[in-house]
């Protein structure tokens, strides 16, 4: 029973990683941009949520109604004004620019909000749990997080394969010059993708902020699991990202069960193992 519990909790943690990774995966899939600032953008979203909840006095989960559009607009503007200028044949300029962005966001947050550790208070839901079987209690919050991760990924999948915007995303991803010939404005398509990515970041940020303390410097540490989930799942594949997150979460939980010192190492080892036998990831969409 203890092992079942370990694995179930691992799957729930996987939902968190998938949420971190979904936005990254989307951006890489559409425009081959590796966003180093992704973790810091999650923390930025957490601070936006902090300001919204404090000024309006609302529950953090309700604040999503504000934080998601704010971050989406920020994403659109960010892409149109800065990131579009860095895209080209070379992978390096966007990498460097997002790296710089990461440092700027961290220090701006430190300047405005100080180094205080903050947390959003969502009330009794934070500690509520459901006992599914004797010995296995599922926290309502982690469960909600997992459900949201699945919902976000299902929504993205729908958007990608069932809508005109999704068709535009796939077309620009496949062949930029040709999609431009067909009348698509790549700059706009990329900006939409970034807006969508930051909308997901907003959800991830609020959930992170309810789950644990955050301060301006924790972004990069949260980012690494996102990257690993994307790579395990296969670049550009949405369901693959979810699978990647879950594999990572479960292997860490099993590692921790053997010895807590092995928790993160176990995740990294599984990641390396998959990278060694299947460098393209489990379910690659992008070749």
């Amino acid at each position: 029973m203890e092992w079942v519990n370990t694995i179930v909790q691992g799957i729930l943690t996987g939902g968190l990683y998938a949420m971190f990774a979904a936005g990254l995966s989307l951006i890489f899939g559409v425009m081959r941009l590796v966003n180093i600032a992704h973790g810091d953008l999650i923390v930025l979203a957490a601070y936006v949520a902090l300001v919204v909840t404090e000024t309006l006095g609302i529950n953090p989960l309700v604040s999503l109604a504000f934080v998601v559009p704010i971050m989406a607009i920020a994403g659109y503007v960010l892409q149109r004004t800065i990131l579009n200028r860095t895209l080209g044949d070379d992978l390096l300029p966007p990498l460097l620019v997002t790296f710089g962005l990461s440092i700027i966001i961290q220090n701006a947050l430190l300047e405005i909000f100080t180094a205080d550790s903050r947390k959003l208070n969502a009330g009794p839901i934070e500690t509520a749990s459901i006992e599914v079987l004797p010995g296995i209690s599922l926290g309502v919050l982690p469960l909600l997080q997992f459900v949201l991760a699945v919902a976000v990924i299902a929504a993205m999948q729908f958007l990608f394969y069932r809508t005109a915007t999704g068709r535009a995303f796939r077309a620009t991803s496949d062949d930029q010059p040709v999609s431009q010939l067909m009348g698509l404005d790549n700059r706009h398509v990329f900006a939409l993708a970034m807006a969508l990515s930051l909308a997901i970041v907003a959800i991830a940020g609020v959930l992170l902020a309810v789950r644990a303390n955050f301060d301006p410097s924790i972004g990069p540490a949260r980012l690494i699991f996102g990257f690993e989930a994307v790579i395990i799942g296969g670049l550009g594949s949405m369901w693959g990202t979810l699978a990647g997150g879950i594999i990572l979460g479960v292997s860490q939980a099993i590692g921790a069960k053997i010895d807590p010192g092995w928790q993160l190492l176990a995740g990294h080892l599984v990641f390396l193992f998959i990278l060694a036998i299947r460098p393209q990831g489990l379910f690659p969409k992008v070749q």
Partner: protein
Amino acid sequence: MTEDNGTSKDQLRSGVSRRTVIQAGVGLVAAPAVLRVIPANAQSKVIKIGNVSPRTGPLAGFGEADPFIIDQVKGILAKGIQSGGKTYSVEIISKDSQSNASRGAEVAAELILRDKVDLILASGTPDTTNPVADQAEVNEVPCITTNCPWQPYFFGRKGDPKKGFNWTYHFFWGLEDIIASFTALWDSAPTNKVVGGMFSNDADGNAFGDANLGFPAALPKAGYKLVDPGRFQLMNNDFTAQISAFKAANVEIVTGVFIPPDFATFWSQAAQQGFKPKIVTVAKALLFPSAVNALGERGNGLTTEIWWSPNHPFKSGLTGQSSKELADAYVKAANRPWTQPIGFQHALFEVAIDTLKRAKSLDPKAIRDAIAATDYQSIVGPVKWTGQPVKNVTKTPLVAGQWQRKGANLDLVITANKPAPQIPVGGKMELLS
């Protein structure tokens, strides 16, 4: 950050400041003349104090009071200090270690080699104190540090208790003190004496969990049984393994070292998975009011170590302020709650200035000897290097207490003072419900 801009920019441009060129030139050409000039210019001789603390990065909370402390000190030193019958003006050059050990070493080297400081100070966890002290030791510059338990400071720098260090001195408490104050705290309430240990895999956690020097050796002697699942990695997202182990062993007391985000994750997962300990006494994560208040109602009743508080019965020898007055001045100036590092940051400058006043000359050896001879009543208690526990370390008193709700905010109340009875208790520990 702000203080170092002026000097470093000027020097970056040319590599050498105008003053050094002139001094060097004068020294070469007209050494005898200089000897005659110095007494006339004694008033303008500057003592430089270098200060390194983490102002940015994950440990920024430890350095946040520095601008306030330094402003206060600068106000007092506006007229300079008297030393050996002469008056010197004092320049404090403050640098940010960015919570990073390599950056700490880099800025310490800059302070020593470029700014040519006479005395170097550092504070705020081993990541800053150790690299700075190492640089000072190598370059033979006197150095005083604080705000880091002495074992990670001394053994983390590969110190040999028989020999010690020549140039670097430290004041703070140690592991034995934190163990004593935690067990004193637990003794005050009835439990089954089964303790769950959560030790992080970093310098602090490994020292706390050390099989010979840390909790695993000391708790059985104090009558407690320790359940130690092993070292956990920082920035963890899942503590299910530890929580299950604690539930299985019927743990009623949780102790250990966490960083604030990890503790928040652990504490909400514990609630979600139905683990309800009676006492939670954790180092590091519960130091700062902001981190504890962030936990909301779940922060009430948690316990932690107290190095300094406004209720400590000590006074500053520099400003004459009592602990309460210093904390109040900070709250007023910064409009933020008091934190424990404030007392130590202040004491660091107290000790530094006391040393410089007593130094026979500005020769590094004379300053070093003055440090070693320190016998000073600071705002964190007496500071006197007597060779105990080791040559370069002296200890300040440590107690433990509980965060208790007082109106809108949580307040840190001293509830156990057995290891340091001179510090009064402010209340009784209540068990978590």
